[in-house]
């Protein structure tokens, strides 16, 4: 669809949408051209209602750090699911913060205090081990990462899936043995055995004994399985 447009207009098409996380308030924004058309004046009004006198003085960067890492999905492990970066979430501390990947696979968490944290990556079709991340206050936010599933420590925060998940069972290909093993296959097999092997068995039986058994049968009236098969006694 987009390939049909000229390359010059392609950038315009790629409009970007801005999302703001907090409850978006409609902004009272109006670019107005006043006396000189060059000077665009942005009137920007801010409602500071109920905003008590506690305006933050400093953002407290001494004890909060940014964790930056990268998610890499080797091409060989991608089966079926296209590894789309837009569908991958990175979760800090069980949902305290959720972020997404940039096109190059990088992600970052801002304003993380020093301490031990947990980072999980959720991507459909892949299983990632949770990562224990130690942010050191002494070394100015130096990050140490360990995979909690394999207890392997990472030299840099590059997260790769432990395995690719296959959500569906694979259909077994056509197999004669599978058919034979199915209940109906067993039934057929049993019948074949009875039909072709029983006469052989009967041949081995002494004719006199057979006659006697048949007489017994007649006397009993109702034949029973055990009396039919004297050999099994």
């Amino acid at each position: 669809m987009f390939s049909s447009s000229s390359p010059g207009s392609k950038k315009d098409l790629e409009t970007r949408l801005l999302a703001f996380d907090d409850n978006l308030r409609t902004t009272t924004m109006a670019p107005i051209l006043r006396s000189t058309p060059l000077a665009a004046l942005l009137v920007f009004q801010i409602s500071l209602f109920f905003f008590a006198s506690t305006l933050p003085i400093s953002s407290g960067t001494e004890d909060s750090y940014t964790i930056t890492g990268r998610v890499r999905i080797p091409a060989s492990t991608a089966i079926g699911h296209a590894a789309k970066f837009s569908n991958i979430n990175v979760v800090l501390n069980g949902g305290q913060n959720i972020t997404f990947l940039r096109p190059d696979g990088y992600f970052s968490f801002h304003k993380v205090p020093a301490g031990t944290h947990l980072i999980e990556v959720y991507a459909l079709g892949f299983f990632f081990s949770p990562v224990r991340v130690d942010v050191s206050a002494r070394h100015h936010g130096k990050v140490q990462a360990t995979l909690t599933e394999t207890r392997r420590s990472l030299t840099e925060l590059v997260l790769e899936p432990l395995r690719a998940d296959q959500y569906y069972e694979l259909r077994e290909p056509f197999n004669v043995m599978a058919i034979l093993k199915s209940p109906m296959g067993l039934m057929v097999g049993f019948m074949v055995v009875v039909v072709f092997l029983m006469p052989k068995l009967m041949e081995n039986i002494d004719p006199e004994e057979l006659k006697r058994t048949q007489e017994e049968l007649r006397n009993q009236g109702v034949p029973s399985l055990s009396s039919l098969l004297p050999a099994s006694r």
Partner: protein
Amino acid sequence: MAMAIKASLLLLVFLSSAIVSFSLYEDQVGLMDWHQRYIGKVKHAVFHTQKAGRKRVIVSTEENVVASLDLRHGEIYVITLSSQGSTLRAWNLPDGQMVWETSLHSAQISKSLLSVPINLKVDKDYPILAFGGGYLHAVSAIDGERVLQPPESSIIYVLGFLHSSEAVVYQIDSKTGEVVAEKSMVFPDGFSGAVSSVSSDKIVVLDSTRSILVTIGFLDGDISFQKTPVSDLVEDSGNAEILSPLLSNMVAVKVNRRTIFVRVGGEGKLEVVDSLSDETAMSVSLPVADDQVAFASAHHEGSKIQLMVKLVDDLETVLLRESIEMDQHRGRVDKVFINNYIKTDMSNGFRALIVMEDHSLLLLQQGAIVWSREEGLASVTDVTTAELPVEKDGVSVAKVEHTLVDWLKGHMLKLKGSLLLASPEDVAAIQEMRMKSSGRSKLTRDHNGFRKLFIALTRAGKLFALHTGDGRIVWSMLLNSPSKSEACERPSGISLYQWQVPHHHAMDENPSVLVVGRCGSDSSAPGVLSFVDVYTGKEISSSDIGHSVVRVMPLPFTDSTEQRLHLIADTEGHVHLYPKTSEALSIFQREFQNVYWYTVEGDDGIIRGHGMKSSCAGETADEYCFTTKELWTVVFPSESEKIISTLTRKPNEVVHTQAKVNTDQDLLYKYVSRNLLFVATVSPKGAGEIGSVTPEESALVVYLIDTITGRILHRLSHQGCQGPVHAVFSENWVVYHYFNLRAHKYEVTVVEIYDQSRAENKNVWKLVLGKHNLTAPISSYSRPEMFTKSQSYFFAQSVKTIAVTSTAKGITSKQLLIGTIGDQILALDKRFVDPRRTLNPSQAEKEEGIIPLTDSLPIIPQSYITHSLKVEGLRGIVTAPAKLESTTHVFAYGVDLFYTRLAPSKTYDSLADDFSYALLLITIVALVAAIYITWVISEKKELSEKWR
């Protein structure tokens, strides 16, 4: 008796030895499950229609979803869930790939504002202005870096309010970010409410009494106030409210249940231009051709919606007037967004996106609804199930299979499919046949109980009945308040209960559900009850109950028409009995002494048990009101323990047998009590997020408390662990998920409770001689002799919610349904969380199906019941039994909805859907043929024998 136990035990052993994990073939997707995607109530919408290609509208919703919708069909293209925070993100439109992200410096959460230049082009570096936490940020649109370098030097005017009574104007040089000038002025009366910007140098606000409009001018950094009482504009005015839509030189004020348009003159003079009825929704203004600005308004007229587009400068000019028939159960129009397009005759056409009171989203164009989406279903608050009507004899059933030939053909196709001999066309035909098969979306009850209704209550106060077969909405109903007062026209729904489920008597009555609502958000607000017929979706009756609703307790008693008795507790400590009939009262009086309930005061760390005392005294009280007395209290020390989770068993859960057989033919008796409460507490320091506490500072303690006597039956402490705790309680066991700080991993613990007092009944001779206490009455007052077994395992994922499967008779083994933070649902067999698991199970234990102990629970990808789908924003999982013992319904809700049918031990009591009848038939035919052939052969042989 012993035989029966033995038989059932054998059955159990048989069931448990048939180890299965939930698994699905790819071609079975959609046979038993359905998935519906929603986005929630739209807050903002931006149309994206200028360029060729797909026309879209980008919306952000109250569920923190940013989505792009196709304008022709309303399909979702891109959906992204974002979290609360102070982060600015830019998304690439075609595929929803995040382009950049930047964090704003703000130590505290505050209202945030965002200003984006219109006609944002990527190749030009316009700054985006954002305000958060007292800081103004200018951010580059290309990479999200914080910049202050617009193309030309300009002055940014910033007007803010301090202490809600002082206006401040800053002039900021947009190149350097320096404050050029600053001026402030105090307005003694104070401001309140929303701000409406009317022009480049004027805004209109309300004063704190909400009766005077204040025009603030800030031309060239000077501030001037001009007061205009609202009463000058309209007669007998009450409290006014400024509506947010932005109209140039105009402000819309809601007063006296009407909306008035006030034009702001050059000197700050205000004059009323037009007025509309109160229930009008307006859009923001939109530039149309020839430097004109238009806006849309929508209001109800009878059963129709009137949509009008007018010019802002000239309210008499109506560009568009359309009236559209609208379902009454959508309520009023809440929001309107408009967009214009050029018709083929070069005139302006308009399309409007409207959000209704029930949160549904509709696109209107040329006087018709192009598409509609039931976005109310993105905010489901409570779910219950209901039966479908029984099939009547007269009702003709749509013929699914016409003739025997067609039937055989279908099964031959299926056989080919299962033998993997089918061509792609055949596969498609099979899939289509399966989808249509067996009338799975019929509106009548079926023999297996697979067809059911899920009744969902949404935050907007609307009830939806969803069919389990295909997920379609059978009926929907918006709750109405019976009194229609101004304060409570639309009550908010709280919870849903099964009111009347005819089983044995009153079979001619339709089943009904009870919807408990509240007039207002405060917990002391008066409640509203509504009774809704499940078959028709019509409200049978509704009533204002005149007291608040704190807790609704369904009692285990029904009256002669099978209406369930309910107790509703109010804020004053009284309980009220419903239904208000003398029959219900007499039933309740009989059980008066046996009704107990408990309350949890989470902030104070107190759990109280209550019993019934007497009828209410006082003039207003009726005979259905009762006072209660406090029976016991459990107080947790507030300096060391904070309640983070409480849980009881589902009241309608069925337990098949109390006995559980051990490997050495030993019997264990489950302690099955409906009055057990699971409580989890953490140290106050550990109540925060992971990473905020060290292992030494945090401990997790779980309790099992009897809610009749207040006795603590069991206490288990986990040092170095913290919440959040997600738990599930079923039969005699609790499974809970928490975080272990020492190992820095999530952990799952199972606790099973067994009855010690019955342990000596194991002796067969005692049973024979009648010296057992099996028939001894059980009293909730007696001190139970019990013991517990528990075991812990690691689990590799964060969890949002845990549920457990439930079946009709409770015979089938259970599965835990774990909703992960990745919005998938994992089915985990209960046998993985069995305290009897050991490292090396003996042969007998293996035969019983005990799995060797491992340190962590397995996550098998095939046991995700959501397979390759996500239930975006998952919040809860509901299970309900089908009539067929092996099968259970699972319904998960969040922003998306997902339903599937599970058979935790496979469908041992019915043939599988893909059972090959054709193969059976072929086998039989082959056998008959073989018999005939062998008979002929034997005849011949006999004949030749005789000839010899």
